[in-house]
């Protein structure tokens, strides 16, 4: 392997294996925090949706369901490519690892692109609270609550996804430097865990946003 000096464990660890395992635990613990962060947002949504079911049904009809659905497919697929990248890295298929990482980055960017287009459509639909909002009959003042949730939730998710893409780019850089190999690929696994978690967030946001008031 190239540059084997880079994989000496830090002073507080006995072995590089321990360092990798602890790094993963750290990410899982961070996800506890992320779960509660997004969970609190969904809690607000839950309270208001149960309070104003009819208003939310009216307001939710304006969400662009095809954008959301396509984005769901893209993100679920990106989790798969991310797993392939890690597996390839672990099995010493460096080239495949890099290809799968690029695929993951591409899917992430595609998600963001579609999201941006969806924001454009939302602006056309006048569902941007404060900036450009038109309350439809039957949604009262509570319809705006739905759209506030929509903007906060999707933009936070997009920020997380952007961070994820940034981390993947950083991983590519570290791969070039030979710091991630089949001997030590824990950083890649850590990023993979984060990436799939962002995917999970979307799994829960999808029914919250796109499936309200369809029938």
């Amino acid at each position: 392997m190239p540059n084997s000096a880079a994989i000496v464990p830090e002073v507080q660890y006995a072995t590089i294996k321990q360092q990798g395992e602890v790094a993963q635990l750290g990410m899982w613990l961070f996800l506890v925090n992320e779960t509660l962060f997004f969970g609190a947002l969904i809690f607000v949504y839950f309270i208001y949706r149960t309070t104003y079911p009819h208003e939310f049904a009216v307001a939710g009809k304006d969400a662009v369901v095809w954008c959301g659905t396509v984005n769901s497919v893209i993100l679920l697929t990106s989790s798969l490519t991310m797993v392939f990248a890690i597996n390839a890295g672990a099995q010493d298929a460096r080239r495949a690892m890099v290809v799968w990482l690029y695929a993951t980055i591409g899917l992430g960017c595609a998600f963001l692109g579609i999201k941006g287009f969806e924001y454009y459509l939302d602006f056309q639909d006048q569902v941007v609270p404060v900036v450009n909002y038109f309350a439809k009959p039957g949604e009262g003042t509570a319809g705006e609550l739905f759209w506030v949730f929509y903007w906060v939730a999707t933009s936070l998710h997009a920020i997380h996804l952007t961070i994820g893409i940034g981390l993947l780019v950083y991983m590519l850089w570290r791969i070039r430097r030979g710091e991630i190999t089949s001997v030590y690929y824990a950083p890649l696994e850590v990023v993979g865990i984060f990436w799939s978690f962002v995917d999970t967030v979307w799994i829960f946001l999808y029914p919250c946003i796109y499936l309200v008031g369809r029938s």
Partner: protein
Amino acid sequence: MYSWIPFWPDTAASSGHAVNTLFAAELALSAVIMLTVVVMMLHFASRYRKGSDASRADRVQKTWHFEIAWTAATLGMFLILFVYGAQIYVWLFRAPRGDEEVYVVGKQWMWKVEHPGGQREINAMHVPIDKTIRVVMASEDVIHSFFIPAFRLKHDVVPGTYETIWFKADRPGVYRLECTQYCGLQHATMQGKVVVMSGPDYARWLTTQGVHESMAEQGEKLFRAHGCSGCHGDNSTVHAPSLNGVYGTFVHLQDGSVRLADEAYLRDCILNPRSFTVAGYPPIMPDFSGQISESDLLKIVAYIQSLSGKQETRR
């Protein structure tokens, strides 16, 4: 009862006496516990100080007996306190019908009090003695908290809904009225007085306040002015529920739920009618949110209440 204790605030209502007893009990219990800890600590600290030659042999080893006993004892005491406190709390915060009603609107930074007869006061509340007074409170801006120390009674006044409390004063006098929820710049001055008067004095006070229209009468005018009577009036042809006798009954809503038609419900119906469509009626009522001030709303609600005849006739 506790007036002989220095630093004990006035007590002038049934709620105050109930809380007094509980508080005194807790004070005594706290004193006993605190003393136990202090005596134990001082005793050990002096007896087992470094220089003393008291025996250190046979230290207590088996800890679980002590811990379980101590835990069970505290838990038992706490449960008694909990039940006692919860009982009074439920009693305090479930307002009965009341002999009299008083309407209170909190706004930055004053308490506006209005009596059913239309008498208005600012930062003062006159009430008769020995009558159950039902206080309906609303806020025009931020959260305030309505507090009468002598009655040991407090409730936040949250904008967007009505809060209802009650009391029964039993000692004439002038007591403090406060806001205890920080509500902005002049929060500290959002204070007033509660004047508890004997029945005849109170009646005399009401008459000296000048001739007013009663709240219900004012409410009736607003009811017409906002066009409510066009649909809910007796001669209306629009398919809208009649409001005669609706206050205090249970209303079946479109979505299958049942609501008690209290003040808060009536208010919600006016401001957000779509969420409260009555079963069997079309959802055609426009919503009035943002169009009627809190004090006007209270008047309209008072008028609808007066239609039910369950309240005493006004004035």
